[in-house]
């Protein structure tokens, strides 16, 4: 997020798109409700699903899935045509306006209405409401990014925010709501193929030098860009990738086109999984290492508003399980030891000398606090943060020095890159659209009571009672036409696979659209989803693919669903 969560309750207008905030970020959802109810903030929601917050919205636009650039350009078209944009801000703080103005010129409300299905007058109303607010905040989530045009969608939103002078002010901003506890932190820490911690490029010689020196690894660091998650599976199929280490992830259920992922993982020479449960991915591994959960280790998480906070150990891990950082250190030391043995054998050097020179940098950390300090010394945006300071409460990065108070909102007075750059974005349809054979849009996401592939929430008795099985959302109009009733079993088929699930009739999905979650291993919805990727972010198009929905005749139904399949596989 460019801004902070607390600002939601002090802004004048909130635009939410591609986020079922009340269910997936309940605490932020409540802030939005309070902003509307108590502080009379205006709320605009743009979502093909009738998400919970639409009840509180002043305007709800319901575009067809995958038409985001069109409606965003449409809003900008109206704002420019009606002279509602912030001319001083655009003049002083941005560049590239003219090209963007020409790009959005054809997107009149009437044209946009044809693409998106949203009435032209609603687009005008939404544009006026957003532009006239003194401060307007955008909140979005995976409904914007998980498209083959995800990067363009985000850039279009940024255009809109800059056009109205809403970046770099309190109560404004372009705010992606991060879906996982420490997804912000994992990115900040350089768990990405192109950057070191703090988004320092792996192709920058100066950065490489700094990390070579800082780590003392005694080897040249690679300046070749690595593979992104979604590129790894094809690389395995091509025989380029032979081994994989997976820490705390379950790509067999979570990644698009799951059948393909499973095939790829089975082909590896070595698959190591460290996790807290014997997940669907762990079942394919060669070695499984038991890790500690968040309750069993010390460390830090960075939340969606860039706030670094302390995670504290409450109990000991079960059995001989270890915190991930200790596992990694042990493995690194073991590899270093083997290499040293080899070198000694080859060179005939004595063991004492070998012991005096550990080959692979420092791995003997006594506590996570020491790891954090090493990281902070190499990461400018975290440089001023330490465990000692975090004891007094979380800190929002950038926090470059020991006495810096942290940064509640970014781009104040000046954009990080200098001037804010408008991008001229054209609308492009999704990679796969419904046709006669596959007439429905399928969109995937989460529900309130479960989280991702359900390894944690489905083992929490309360949550499992309240939401024990997948219910595919289908609009009653479609259901009536197809003779499907609430609770009926349907078969959903895409070009990549087929699943069976029970149906929940709900107005939440628009006619012609079905919605399912990826929480339930009995209904692995990602065998359906399209692994078409955004060309820049390589994010799969989870939010749009074309499917066929058929009612499964009663006779064909299995006697009892195999609920406990995964547990049975685990050795006692």
């Amino acid at each position, binding site marked *: 997020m460019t801004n902070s969560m607390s600002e939601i309750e002090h802004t004048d207008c909130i635009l939410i798109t591609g986020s079922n905030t009340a269910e997936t970020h309940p605490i932020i959802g409540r802030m939005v409700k309070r902003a509307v109810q108590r502080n009379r903030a205006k709320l605009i929601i743009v979502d093909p699903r009738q998400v919970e917050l639409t009840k509180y919205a002043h305007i709800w636009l319901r575009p067809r899935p995958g038409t985001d650039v069109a409606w965003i350009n449409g809003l900008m078209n109206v704002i420019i045509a009606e002279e509602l944009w912030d001319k001083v801000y655009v003049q002083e703080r941005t560049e590239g306006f003219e090209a963007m103005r020409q790009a959005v010129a054809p997107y009149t409300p009437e044209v946009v209405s044809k693409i998106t299905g949203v009435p032209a007058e609603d687009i005008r109303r939404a544009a006026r409401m957003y532009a006239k607010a003194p401060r307007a905040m955008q909140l979005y989530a995976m409904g914007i990014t998980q498209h083959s045009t995800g990067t363009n969608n985000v850039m279009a939103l940024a255009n809109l925010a800059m056009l109205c002078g809403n970046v770099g002010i309190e109560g404004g901003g372009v705010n992606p709501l991060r879906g996982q506890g420490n*997804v912000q932190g994992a990115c900040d820490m350089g768990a990405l193929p192109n950057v070191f911690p703090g988004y320092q490029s792996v192709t920058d010689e100066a950065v490489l030098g700094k990390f070579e020196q800082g780590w003392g690894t005694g*080897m040249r660091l690679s300046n*070749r860009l*690595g593979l992104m998650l979604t590129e790894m599976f094809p690389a395995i199929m091509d025989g380029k990738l032979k081994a994989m280490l997976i820490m705390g*992830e379950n790509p067999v259920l979570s990644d698009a086109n799951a059948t393909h992922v499973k095939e790829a993982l089975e082909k590896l020479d*070595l698959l190591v999984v460290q996790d807290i449960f014997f997940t669907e991915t762990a079942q394919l591994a060669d070695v499984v290492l038991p890790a500690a959960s968040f309750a*069993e280790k010390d460390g830090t998480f960075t*939340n969606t508003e860039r706030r670094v906070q302390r995670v504290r150990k409450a109990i000991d891990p079960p059995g001989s399980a270890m915190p991930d950082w200790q596992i990694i250190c042990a493995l690194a030391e073991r590899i270093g030891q083997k290499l040293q043995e080899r070198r000694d054998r080859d060179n005939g050097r004595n063991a004492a000398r070998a012991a005096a020179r550990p080959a692979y940098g420092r791995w003997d950390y006594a506590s996570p606090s020491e790891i954090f300090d090493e990281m902070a010394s190499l990461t400018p945006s975290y440089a001023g943060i330490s465990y000692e300071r975090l004891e007094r409460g979380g800190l929002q990065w950038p926090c470059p020095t020991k006495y810096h108070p942290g940064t509640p909102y970014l781009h104040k007075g000046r954009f990080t890159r200098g001037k804010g750059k408008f991008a001229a974005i054209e609308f492009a349809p999704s990679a796969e659209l419904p046709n006669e054979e596959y007439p429905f849009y399928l969109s995937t996401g989460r529900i309130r009571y479960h*989280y991702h592939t359900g390894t944690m929430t489905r083992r929490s008795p309360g949550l499992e009672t309240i939401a024990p099985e997948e219910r595919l959302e289908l609009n009653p109009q479609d259901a009536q036409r197809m003779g499907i009733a609430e609770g009926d079993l349907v078969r959903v088929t895409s070009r990549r696979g087929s699943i069976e699930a029970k149906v929940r009739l709900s107005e939440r999905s628009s006619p012609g659209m079905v919605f399912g979650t990826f929480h339930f291993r009995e209904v692995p919805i990602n065998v359906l989803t399209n692994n078409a990727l955004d060309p820049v972010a390589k994010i799969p198009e989870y939010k749009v693919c074309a499917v066929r929905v058929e009612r499964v005749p009663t006779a064909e139904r299995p006697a009892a669903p195999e609920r406990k399949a995964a547990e049975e596989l685990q050795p006692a």
Partner: protein
Amino acid sequence: MASFTRHDLKRIHLTVNGRPILARAGQTVLEAARENGIHIPTLCYHEKLKPIGACRLCVVDVAGTPTPVTSCTTPATEGMVVTTDSAMLENLRRETLKLLLLRHPMNCAACELNGNCQLQDLVHEYDITHQDLHTYEITPVEYDAGVWATPLIKYHPQRCVLCGRCVQACIEITGAGAINFKGRGATTRIAPVEPTLNSQGECVSCGECMAICPVNALTEANAKPKGKPWETTRVKTVCGYCGCGCELELNVVHGQVVGVTPAGDNGVNNGALCAKGRFGYGFINHQDRLKEPMIKRDGYWEQSNWDEALDYIADKLLQIRDQHGPDAIAALSSARCTNEDNYLFQKLTRGVIGTNNIDHCARL
């Protein structure tokens, strides 16, 4: 939350128990008294909520007012003369408490809140025994357990003192309004409301009602019995589910996480939690947890140990790196692990294995 009382800098002078005190404009008599160290007992009052005025324990005398008033709902005004501790007031409070106890069983040994209960403290303060309750010839009504708005929470109507905190929390903190008072007289209870057409009143199972209940009338339906307050360790940490980063406290008894409570009114969440954060802790001590390293040999899993497993991995990795180069190895990190875990994982991948093939689940 506290937006109801808008404090400004204007000072108000009032006299409480003969002592002159200063209050800020907008404060209630209760708030002003508490800020000045004057004790007034309460049960329904909670700093996070608007004053409810239901329990009648905070009654005070205000000069010029014929009957006692509830101090939690009475704004402090200039020149007010207040008495909080007269014998008559104490007697009133004592009788009010006795009436509450006709409903609420004094079976503290069976209650998890024993030792950390406001009602228990008040009973102690006013020295009420079972004998005292016989002054009222009322047979308590039989209550059926009833259903709560969510299957995650169990309602104990006989414990309920009808303070209304839960009703108010559901409206003010959650914004749902899913529960309300139902019935009248001795059979009054709290019950789910029928969701209206625009689904206002739909329970979202956040458990704010349970967290704010002063007398343990709402408990977790699917949980094992929790420990006594004095054997419970509360460890402040951050929720691991979505990216909000709410602060919470893990309640630990004998090395097991038995519950989640909010960590005061601090953090981005101001002490609020959602269904996953509050009820989604069962996985931590689950029997399915992996406990030992395992190696698959010829398609069968064998339990192993760290030494053997690390040897196996290190040998295999080096062999693959020798044969195919470092870029034949890739690592997937995790958004559910800490910053330290992620930092070290990329350090291992880049600095020891020698490839930039590292990514995580940010796109999922």
